[in-house]
Structure formats: structure tokens, C-alpha cells
């Protein structure tokens, strides 16, 4: 096991133990991944010895660039791909030994638009219900209920080829939920959608999560989304989990807030003086300004000003920045997600063009 994942599992095991000791059942583990690996063509390590756990009821996110191993991990956990080695227990069933049982209790909303364009929205949901062997007398009212929940009631009898991108996503959601899964996998659920539609889709997902009391496992490369929706995030790159934790933990792990201070007296080095202030962790000087990393920026900044002023220096400028997920991402993967986002969107657009070409 890698050091990082070992550290994480220890943390999580600790919380799980606490939960068990206090008699709480809410921290039951729903996904437990052990040394999961996938090697393609015996050389390409798509997923490299990944271990983590997800407690029931959590929204867990995989954040990472293209080819990081997000989808491959999802494909293994949803039994579409077989792991090269390692395994996982999903909802109490082993994904290798008992794949059939796993398939019965999970739901999947794939990255692609998989609904059949030549069928209506209603027909697509019923088709998915048939894959799970749900009897008609149950699946019919369920399909109607889901169409209503995702706001497609009026479009239910229209062919999917007339749907917009947002409508198709909502239909994929409904299809993934028809079996009432305890655990729902969402692979890039808002890829290729505009900002308003993305927000709307997330409103639906949050509503459905509460409605069906599900655990969500999602992948995304939208940092804001991961930040605002996930309870915990795993940053994954080159098939390995680089860091795992809640969004605020991840941001805190960067070493706190960044304070930029400009001082009129440029000739003296004030670094040791600033360093004495409470909460300050690092100070670096560049010209007349100082870059300070501090744990509690709101408290540290006034204290620094006070310290400088009482020593007879004049502060000319000050700014305080809270770390964002973007910085977290940059810190751990060594690159920004922005350009990769546009790459992925272009690929997605290409795929949609292909799909049209087929019809």
C-alpha cells in the first residue's frame, strides 16, 4: 500500500472505529477498495494500487485530469472492467467474485449520452428498468415518478434526438436511478454543459440523493463542483491517489491563507519580524512586498500590520487570499486544470458529432 493511501485508510479506520464504538450505524462503509490496479496491454498502468473507503451516505469525488484513471476506476467498481489485481467490496459484495450481486445494487450514470436517440424518454427508462428485471407494474409508476423528478414529464413521449444536452443528462440520471440503487456512480455528470445547466443538474442530483438516501461516487474535473458538492475528494493523477480529504482539509493542507504585504521601507528585510506573528508559517520577500502563508489569515493579517506599525514601518498594500481548489489541484498534480477542461470538452463535442453522424 502506498504511503498516502495508508495514511488515509488509517484516518478513516479511526473514524469508523469511533462510530462502531459509540454504536452509530451511520458510518457504515459502503465501498472499500483494496490495492485496486488496472494494467492495459501489460504496460500501461491506468490505475495503480489504489485503496480507499467510502462511508454510506457520503458524496465522494474523484478529481483529476484526462487519463488520470478516474473512469477506469469507475469501470472496475461497476464491474465493466476486471481489475488486473486488487479488489473492492461494493455494498457488501466483492466486485470480482460476486459481480452479479454488485450489479443489482448499484446505479450508473455514464459519461456518455447512452440513451437511445430513436426511442422516447419514457421508453429509455423502461428499457433500463428491464435490464434490472423490474416487473412492469413497479417500473411503470417509477418511470413516471422519475420523469417528474428530473423535470422531463412534458418531454417524456418525445424522441430523445429532440432533447437538449441538459435534458439528456437528466434522462441519464433517471435511467441510473430506476433500480433504486444504494450507491450511484456519476461519471462526469455535467461534462459539456453550460454553467446554468450544470447548476440545475446538481440541484436535481442533490434532490435525488436525499429522496433515495443514496451514496454518490462521482468523477469530475470541474474544481468548483468538487469543492461545493463533495464531502470528500480524492485527487488522482497517473492512476494514483495523491491526496484525499474534505475540501476544507485539502485547502488547509496547502499551509493556509496567503497574505501579500507591501511596505514602504524597502531597504530593510522584515522577514524575521513578520515571522514572529502568531499563525504565520512562512514568509518570503520579493522586492518591497512579502508573501506570507498563515493558518488563519483573518487574524494574522491585522496582527502583522500591528507588529509592523509598532516597529515604525508603513504598510502600503495588503491582500488576503483563501486557497481555492485550483491551488490545491496545482499543488498536488503540478498543473492547472483549466486547459485540460477545454480539451475534454472538445473531445466530448467530437463524440457528439460522431453520434449525429451515425443517425
Amino acid at each position, binding site marked *: 500500500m502506498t504511503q498516502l493511501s495508508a495514511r488515509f485508510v488509517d484516518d478513516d479506520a479511526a473514524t469508523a472505529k469511533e462510530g462502531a464504538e459509540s454504536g452509530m450505524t451511520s458510518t457504515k462503509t459502503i465501498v472499500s477498495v483494496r490495492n485496486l490496479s488496472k494494467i492495459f496491454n501489460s504496460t500501461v498502468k491506468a490505475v495503480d494500487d489504489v485503496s480507499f473507503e467510502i462511508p454510506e451516505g457520503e458524496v465522494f469525488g474523484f478529481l483529476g485530469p484526462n487519463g488520470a484513471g478516474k473512469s477506469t476506476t469507475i*469501470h472496475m467498481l*461497476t*464491474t*465493466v*472492467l*476486471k481489475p488486473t489485481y486488487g479488489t473492492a467490496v461494493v455494498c457488501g459484495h466483492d466486485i470480482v467474485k460476486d459481480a*452479479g450481486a454488485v*450489479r*443489482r*445494487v*448499484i446505479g*450508473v450514470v*455514464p*459519461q*456518455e*449520452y*447512452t440513451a*437511445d436517440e*430513436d*426511442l422516447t424518454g419514457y*421508453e429509455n427508462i*423502461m*428499457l*433500463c428498468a*428491464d*435490464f*434490472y*428485471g*423490474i*416487473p412492469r407494474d*413497479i417500473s411503470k409508476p*417509477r418511470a413516471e*415518478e422519475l420523469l417528474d423528478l428530473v423535470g422531463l414529464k412534458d418531454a417524456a413521449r418525445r424522441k430523445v434526438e429532440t432533447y437538449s444536452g441538459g435534458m439528456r443528462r437528466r434522462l441519464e440520471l433517471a435511467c441510473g436511478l430506476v*433500480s*433504486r440503487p*444504494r450507491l450511484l*456512480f456519476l461519471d462526469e455528470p455535467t461534462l459539456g454543459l453550460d454553467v446554468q445547466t450544470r447548476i440545475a443538474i446538481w440541484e436535481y442530483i442533490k434532490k435525488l440523493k436525499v*429522496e*433515495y438516501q443514496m451514496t454518490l461516487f462521482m468523477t469530475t474535473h470541474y474544481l468548483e463542483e468538487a469543492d461545493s458538492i463533495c464531502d470528500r475528494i480524492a485527487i488522482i493523477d497517473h492512476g494514483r491517489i495523491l491526496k484525499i480529504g474534505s475540501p476544507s482539509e485539502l485547502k488547509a493542507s496547502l499551509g493556509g491563507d496567503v497574505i501579500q504585504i507591501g511596505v514602504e521601507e524597502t531597504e530593510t528585510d522584515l522577514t524575521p519580524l513578520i515571522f514572529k506573528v502568531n499563525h504565520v508559517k512562512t514568509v518570503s520577500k520579493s522586492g518591497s512586498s512579502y508573501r506570507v502563508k498563515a493558518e488563519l489569515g483573518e487574524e494574522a493579517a491585522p496582527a502583522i500590520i500591528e507588529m509592523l506599525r509598532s516597529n515604525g514601518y508603513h504598510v502600503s498594500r495588503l491582500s488576503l487570499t483563501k486557497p481555492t481548489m485550483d491551488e490545491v489541484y496545482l499543488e498536488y498534480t503540478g498543473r492547472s486544470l483549466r486547459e485540460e477542461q477545454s480539451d475534454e470538452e472538445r473531445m466530448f463535442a467530437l*463524440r457528439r458529432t*460522431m*453520434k449525429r453522424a*451515425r443517425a
Partner: protein
Amino acid sequence: MARSSKGNSHLNTGMTHGLWSLTNRELKKWYKAPFILLMSLVQPIIWLALFGKAMNFGALFSGSSFNIPGLNIPKEVLNSISQQIMESTFGTRDYFSFLAVGMLSFIALFTAMFSGMSIVWDRRLGFLSKLLSTPLARGVIPMAKVFSSVIRGLAQSGIVFLIAVLLGLDLSHITFLGVLGTFAALFLMILGLSSLFIMLAIRSTSWESQMAIMNLLNLPLLFASNALFPAKFMPSWLQPVVSVNPISYATDIARQLLLGSPGMASLAFDFAYLVAFAALLCTLGTYMSWRFLTK
């Protein structure tokens, strides 16, 4: 809102659940789109009308220009010779009837070919991944493709048969049992061929290569059979190919049953060959998909 209990014990997840739903999904693309149905019939109709009617082999002998100097052969004798030659070559008096029956196999072959294409598309568009994450039995996925292609193929050959009747198919030997037997043979042929083409496509993600395979096999399979021309006049190196080609056997059955032609083998042997062919490829196709659908 009422929530059903968490237990999924009421699910009917057997070995074949979802088979009909998946088959029907494929069929809906066809019967709900009359244009596609029409287009898939245009080719055999063109072949029937142009090839079958234009290649008027009978006229080679009965044409007015046919005359040998010094001999004054009466018209009736010429006609009778022409009919004898047609009968012994094609097993029927007009080439149109000969071709029309072969065309039934042709359209069936054509339908079977496309079954491989749709699995490539399903893989590329992520539909296959979605299917694989559901409790469907793995074998159901290719079986649904095979069944839909069988149903389509039989329906399309049925339509071609009706058109051939309208265009003047020789009906002097037709019986209900003969028609039934012909379609049973076609059923077996499509079953085997669809399984074959799905097997070829099972790991493929490229529809270009799938197209190449189809084009490579399409015409050789057709020409190296007795569908368009009697096998007995083909060169000796081609004859063995014709005699393993399942299309030859389906066509042979159809000619014997519909036109009363003498066959290249007995009906029993023809049927036995097709049953073996279909059973082998069907089993192999189901096994391969169970084994290789998941990477």
C-alpha cells in the same frame, strides 16, 4: 413521496431477462423508421428488376437472329432446345425465378452483416458499458442482436419474396410447406451468419475496420455461392468454396422447395448442414461474448 423498500428481492433477474427488451430496441430502429426499411429493400429490388429481368438468358436461343446457314430449324424446335438448356442449367425455365430465389438469401446475408456494426456503435457510444454494469446475463447482449437481425432478415426476405411473386416468379411448384421450409432455412442461415459477424465485432471499437470486414466478405460470400449462378458451371477451384458456403445450402433448399429444381445435395443434407452451422456459431458467439465482452 412514497419510497419502495430497499430490498430488490422482487426482481426477475434470470438468464434471459431483458432479452426481448433489448431485441425490441434494435427492431424499433427499423420498423419505426419506414425510410430505413424502404432503403434496405431497394437494393434487392434493383437486383431483381435489373439483373433478373435484364439477363434474359432464354432469349439467347429464341432470338430471331439465331440461325445456322444450310439448316432450316423450325421455331418450335429452337424454343424447345432453349427451354431444355435453361432447365438443365438453372433448374427452372426462366433466369428471373432462379435469381429471385437466390435473392432471398442475398437480403438475409445483407441484414446479418449489419448486426456486427451495431455492437461497434454500442461500444463506442458507451451503451455497451452501461449494459455491462446492469445485471443482464452477458450472453443476452449478443443474443438480442442476433434475434433482431433474424427477425429483420426474415421480414425482409418475406417482402422480397412477395415482390418476386408480383414480378412473375414461377409459381407452378409452390406449396405452403415449401415456403415454410424455405424460411426455416433462411432462419438458420441468418442465425449463424449474425453470430459470426457479431463475433468478429465483439472487441472492435472501429467501425471503419468493421466496414472493411463487411465489404471483404460481402461479395465473395455472394458470388462464391449458387445464389446468382449454378455452382456446377463454376471452375473446379471455386466449387469447394461454394460447397462450404452456408448461403449455397439455404439457396439450394429454397430452389428445391419453391421451384422444384434438382438440388446440389439432398434436402436432408442441406438442412443438417445449416443446423450444424447455426448451432456451432451461435454457441461460439455466446461463449465469445461471455468471455471477451469485458476487457
